[in-house]
Every structure is written in C-alpha cells, then in structure tokens.
C-alpha cells in the first residue's frame, strides 16, 4: 500500500458544509477544505481559528474524516468551553480557518489492527479506520462509554470496520466495564497485528499494558494544551524514552512504549 505523499502544512479558509448534532453536546462539522482533505493522514489534527469575541488562540481538533474526492474534512467535537461553543454555532456557508494538517499520525503498514477508543478519542480513530478500510485493511474497533447513549459512534464506524466490540460502564450495551475488561480476550483470540488507542490517558495506559503483555505493537494518541501547534511554543512538551518531545509536532501519535515508561 502506498502512503499519501507527505506535504507541507497550509492555512486554509474552510467553508462549513454541514453541522450536525450527534449526541448531547457532541457535534460533527463537515468542512470544505480541499488542501487538508488531500494531504491529511489519519491521526493528524488541525488548529482551528474560530473568529469569535473572546477567543484568541486556535483550538486543536483531530481530523475525524477526510475525503479527497469531495474535498471535505469532518471534525467531531464536544462543546466544553467558549471555543467549541463558537464552533457549534457555525452554520453552513460560514467560514473557519484551518491550520494543518499537523503532527504525526498512525502507522499505515498494518492489516488487522484493533482500534481502541473512548469519548472524543474515537474521532481520530474514525479517520484511521476509514483510511485503513480504503487501503484494503481490516480494522476492528473496541469502544467504551459510560452508557449506551455515548456509543453513537457505532453507526459512524460501521462502514469501515470488520467488527465492532462494545463496553459500557453500566452494562446498558455490550460488556459491562471498561474497555480493558474485554481487551485481553479480544487480543488473545482476534489475531490482530497491532493496537491503536485514543481516549483518556488512564485508558490508554491500560490498553498499552495489555497489548504489551500480548506482544502487540501499540500506538497511542496524546492530548496536551497547545499554543502554536507547530512545535514552537513548547506548551505541549513531554518526557519520552528519547528525551523531550513535542506532542504537536512529534506526536500526537506515539508508540506506547516511548511515552508510557
């Protein structure tokens, strides 16, 4: 499989195509952004400039979907503060400025990975599943939520996943418990060649540990407060097995053993 050509970053005025509420406080924003759609790799993110009073810095959001043909990208985000509130107020035809695609994404040299996610962490994993599927790979997904209502993601993943496995904290859907309750048996029996995780850090640590026990390579996508997104301000610097690294530039996707040590 050939990787899309690595291209430089751009600033692009993106036009809103659709804005859809997926669940309480969660939205999917589809944008016309041909440059981003063409060059995006799964796991990369954009720095979104919402021109709204009181919002100054850009906001980092993972690319949830990228479609070269239609020239569109989608962001899936939870409204948590003034930046994401302003984003949720955007209507078709309005514009936002995107800076990206930024950072290093997930590896594409896999055939049968298990993608493990919780909450908004499922957003970049959706992009990963899409890309893998289009390249003929067979990703499976393990998603966890507090309740069945949080697993609206199933429908989004369905076209791009060979199988979807579910856990809920309250047992209202799938296996009761965290994703790590189901993970050991899945990994033991599923014949996967790799694991990718995105979600709360405590979940990713748990996933990485199980993957390591099973001898499977595991990538994780980290989240840190970011200023520039270009590796200049050092707001998101972290310790890794190879010394200090920047989540925005050297990540957000890292091999688990480099960052959880």
């Amino acid at each position: 499989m050939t990787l899309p050509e690595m291209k430089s970053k751009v600033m692009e005025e993106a036009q809103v195509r659709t804005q859809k509420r997926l669940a309480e406080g969660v939205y999917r924003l589809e944008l016309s952004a041909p440059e981003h759609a063409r060059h995006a790799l799964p796991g990369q993110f954009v720095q979104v400039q919402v021109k709204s009073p009181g919002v100054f810095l850009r906001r980092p959001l993972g690319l949830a979907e990228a479609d070269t043909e239609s020239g569109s990208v989608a962001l899936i985000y939870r409204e948590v503060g003034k930046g994401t509130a302003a984003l949720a107020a955007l209507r078709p035809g309005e514009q936002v400025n995107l800076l990206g695609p930024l950072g290093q994404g997930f590896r594409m040299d896999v055939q049968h990975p298990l993608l493990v996610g919780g909450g908004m962490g499922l957003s970049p994993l959706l992009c990963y599943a899409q890309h893998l599927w289009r390249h003929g790979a067979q990703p499976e997904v393990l998603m966890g939520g507090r309740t069945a209502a949080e697993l609206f993601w199933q429908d989004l993943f369905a076209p791009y996943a060979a199988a979807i496995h579910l856990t809920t904290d309250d047992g209202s859907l799938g296996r009761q418990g965290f994703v790590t309750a189901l993970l050991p048996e899945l990994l033991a029996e599923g014949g996967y060649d790799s694991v990718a995780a995105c979600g709360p850090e405590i979940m990713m640590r748990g996933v990485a540990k199980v993957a390591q026990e099973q001898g499977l390579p595991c990538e994780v996508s980290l989240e840190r407060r970011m200023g520039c997104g270009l590796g200049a301000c050092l707001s998101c610097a972290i310790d890794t097995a190879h010394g200090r690294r920047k989540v925005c530039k050297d990540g957000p996707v890292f091999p688990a053993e480099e960052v959880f040590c």
Partner: protein
Amino acid sequence: MQDNLLSTSFCGIRMNTPVLTASGTFGFGEEFADFVALSRLGGVCVKGTTLAPRRGNEGVRIAETAGGAGMLNCIGLENPGADIFLQETLPRLTKYSMNIIVNISGSTPEDYGTLAEKLDVPGVAAIELNISCPNVREGGIVFGTDPRAAAQVTAEAKSHTGKPVIVKLSPNVTDIKVMARAVEEAGADAISLINTLLGMEIDIRTRKPVLGNVTGGLSGPCVKPVALRMVYEARQAVSLPLIGMGGITCWQDAVQFFLAGADAVAVGTANFVNPAVTMEICDGLEAYLQANGMKNIRELIGALEQ
C-alpha cells in the same frame, strides 16, 4: 516585493525588513518555513538558551486569558542547552539564510559571559540577553529589575563576545528609563522590549491557579499599550537602537512602534494565531510607506507628532 523600502541596518546587521520574531514564540524559525520567507525577516530570535539543558515547568504551561486578548505562559525556559544548540540546531539553520539572534539566560552574571563566549561563532548575528524571564526562580527577573545587576550582566556579556549584545528589558519595573540607561552605560549595543508582564488566572470552578507555575508571563494584544508606552519612554532615555515588541498583531501596530521610536519590531504571540503574520506585516508596512511617499522605513522611526 519592494523590500528596499524596508531594508535597514541594525547594530551593523543588514536586515531585509525591520520585522523580527520574538524569542520563544517562533521556535528556531524552521517550524514556520511553510508560511514565512525566513530570509525576509530582519531576524529570528531563537528560544531562550541556557548553559545546561532545561526541561521547563511542570503542569499547564499556557492559558488564554479571559476576554481572549492575550495569553499567559510559564514554559520555564525549556531548551536543549547551548552545546546542543551549537552542535545540532545551528548547522541545520544555515540553509535559511536568516539572521539568527540567540536569546540567552543565566543564573549568574558569569553564566551570561560564558554563554556569550560560546555563541561568538559564525552563523550567530547577535545575542539577546534575557534578563527578564518571569518563569524561572533563579536569576532571570532579578537581573531585569535591578539596574545594577542589569548593568553587571550586560558588561559581563559584552566583555566575552564580539557580537552585538541586545539587552531585553522586563516591563515589570517602576521606571523603564532607569533600566534602559543602566544597560546603555554598561555597553549594550541595543535594547529590546518588552518581555512578558507577570500575570495570573484562576479557575473559579476548581479554585486553583490555571497555570502549573501559578503565575506566568502575559503577552498578546492586551499588552500592546504598555509595550508601546515603554518603547516611547526608552526612546526618550537612551540613544541605542531599539527593538519594540509586545502585542503586535498587524502592520498598524508595527507602525505605532516605529512612530514611538523603535528601529525594528518583533512579533511574538501573534505567530501562534497566524503563522504568516510577519509577512502580512511586511506587506502592510510597504504599502503604508508607499502611500505616504516615504522611501525607507527609517523615515518613520520616531516620527511621532506631538
């Protein structure tokens, strides 16, 4: 591009434009190569460099300020140290043919001398003494708020390098003129100002400080009037060339700094919002000079009418 309108000389350094980038906000320049013609900049002030590597502060390191007119940072001078900078970073930067100004920080006056000497190498256009970092416990701000200490640090650096020495002043003082005169008398070649203003934000939900380091440096549009006033005052106090900075986000802001007496300007936080902002500022300045029948930026410097 009519950059002869903007071409200038600063401390003997030829600059294609008088628009520089501020330390800590532009990495080593290379991070912005997709958006900026780096050689068009007057110079890139690289991240504060210390003798030993520093990992910076723990916890949350930046916060947007309420109202959205600026940000606080408490990065705490994370950097790989002068030796790594010289061995690994500097050689990588030569291909951009930009003026590289190395911002240095020490815990003792002797540190500044040692750093100045180490950095007296081809490829470094000048050094900038950060005597005003609010985010490190030792040194830093102490040198920037006491005129005698500032003079001592300046003299120490000057006696260890042949490069122009630019001293970066802290706004966290009662009288910026006193500081400016002290470093001029100690032999500084130029002054840059301002560094960040000390500030703080509190999360009213958790009742905890937002920043891991509790306090941090305020920058961005909200500091511009303070910065402009300080450049204006420094201009009255000393005859050294000045680099004005603090809250510049557009060419109109830059024009104000030139009118107040800055010989060059530096752009910081605005690079985070628009990585191409320095190029837009250069374009805007050119158009402004042309529209006003001026032949070169020097005609604008200190041209404040009163």
